[in-house]
């Protein structure tokens, strides 16, 4: 009976390593310990940034979790779930990607990437309203005044 329980534990441990990691792994971990995750299915969370670059029936999405952005190679239909990508005027969708991490993907020229099996939008992104600080406006006006004075002074010095 003890042997059976021990074998079951070992089986569960190893099958867990080969299968999907339930907890999302941070990009810092994926990049610095890529050997550990190479070829394995991982869950990764972050903000979709920049552009969704469609290439045939697939697309590239770059997902940034605060440390690094990692390229996600995903089916075009699945990528369409992402409606906002991060930029100056927008906060991108916060997504969870489950897929296989490649330390040096042979299909994509040795890039460290994730070939996604699924993508889920956890928090939708939104457009950001830009606000100009009043302090900045005040400084601009003061400096403009000083600049005018210096220009006038320089004209007098010329004469």
């Amino acid at each position: 009976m003890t042997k059976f329980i021990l074998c079951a534990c070992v089986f569960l441990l190893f099958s867990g390593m080969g299968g999907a990691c339930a907890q999302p792994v941070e990009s810092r971990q994926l990049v610095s310990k890529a050997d550990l995750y190479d070829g394995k299915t991982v869950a990764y969370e972050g903000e979709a940034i920049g552009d969704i670059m469609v290439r045939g029936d697939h697309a590239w999405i770059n997902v940034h979790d605060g440390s690094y952005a990692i390229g996600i190679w995903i089916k075009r239909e699945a990528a369409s779930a992402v409606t906002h990508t991060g930029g100056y005027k927008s906060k991108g969708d916060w997504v969870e990607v489950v897929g296989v991490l490649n330390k040096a993907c042979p299909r994509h020229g040795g890039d460290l990437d994730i070939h996604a099996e699924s993508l889920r939008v956890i928090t939708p992104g939104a457009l950001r309203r830009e606000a100009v600080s009043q302090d900045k406006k005040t400084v601009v006006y003061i400096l403009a005044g000083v600049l005018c004075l210096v220009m006038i002074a320089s004209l007098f010095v010329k004469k």
Partner: protein
Amino acid sequence: MILKPNLDDIKNIGFYLGKVIIGLGLTMCLPILIGLIYGESSPIFDFMIAAEAALILGLALKTLCRSNKDLSWMQGMIVVSLSWIVAMFIGAIPLYLSGHWRSFLDACFDSMSGFATTGLALGQDLDHLSYTHNFWRHLIMFIGGQGIVVVALSFFIKGLSGAFKMYVGEARDERILPNVVHTSRFIWLVSLVYFVLGTSVLAIIASAGGMHISKALFHGACVFMTAFDTGGFCPQSQSILYYHSFPFEIATVVIMILGALNFKLHYHVWTGNRKEIYRNIETGTFFITVISAFLVTAVGLAQAGIYQGAFVLFRKGFYQLISGHTGTGFQTIYPQQFAGEWNDLAVVGVICGMALGGAVCSTTGAIKMLRLGIIFKAMAQDIKRIILPERAIVVKKFHHIRETFLQDTHVRPALLITLAYLLLYGIGTLVGMFFGYPFLHSLFESTSAAANVGLSCGITSSGMPALMKVVYILQMWAGRLEFMSVFTLVGFMVAAIRGK
């Protein structure tokens, strides 16, 4: 006896420094224009503050130090070295105001990194940076690559007989055309023609790769500016890895190599003398060093066994190497992969490439090919002298635009500058090790800063010690100006204190 600088020296320096600062302030109209196009109001205010500050300072200096005298060699060199320091501070103002840099020192670091065409960056959350600020990051690389004073010479200073002294101070000791202002304008012509071509090619590739055409054009222009001026900033935090595109990588490799060639060579090729490409000592030396450094890198990568297949190994290995050798600093791997996955041999291959650089009178930093070629020719000459009978006269020639007999007057400055670069690489390495970083990583980052490359193995970050940031800033500055104007400034300061 050391002579104390007199008031005329200071007035002359202040007057021309003022002109350069006004020029810099006026260039800020370009990012303001970008802000207007993309409807970004807050960044426009950041640039208005910086431009006004620059114009006030420049105008005040020009007015207070009014002078009609020509610049002496010493004054010209000091104007150049001070211009770069002032440019760093002014260029940092809009970056700091954006809120993407944790301190003004960090903003100064990126500003100097931009002007010196290095490419090391401390900016935070670059993926959310405005188009306006992003454009400025790339524009300062373009301006710095051409030379801040070259910009002023081309557009703001007319018919100045002391212009050549400032031109030389920016590590451009070769005149392409008889008049130095015409030379500056030719450099701009070459750059602008390539700008149109390069931007179009990159934009077409990016657009075909799934990017919207308006964004593709912006990215094309930014990446061209930093590739041709061998800078290395990129609009996104992932550098070139962001694009996931082999054609984009090929295009940037071609642009980086074009940027690493001597502008004089460009001139001769443009005027029909295509044979110069093969005959020139610089292109020959560049070809040999690229092949040699790549072989070292490739053997290292093969030993490490990271990349499956020769093509993948070539694509990753050659890209990082040529990016380092041309002094650009684009990466298609993460900085931590250099430190964690590449073995020491592969890293040493890239360090060698970074330390050597491209051609003189180009936008690259580091030792440069002409000096290396001359040193090797001199070594060959000495070896021949030992082997041949004592009475034999050994003569060596080298071809750089024209055939020249190799003389000690060529070898001595080449060796001196090479030695100065090696010392600079060494000082930065020691500082890195002082703060506890491993030797090879410290050497990598120090060489990258001093040779104005921008590749990083992960040391450069906002969290690194402030002293290291200052040391890297000084390395970038001294490395870009190739020491002479920096030494002159130090001498001037010593004379001001101890002179009689």
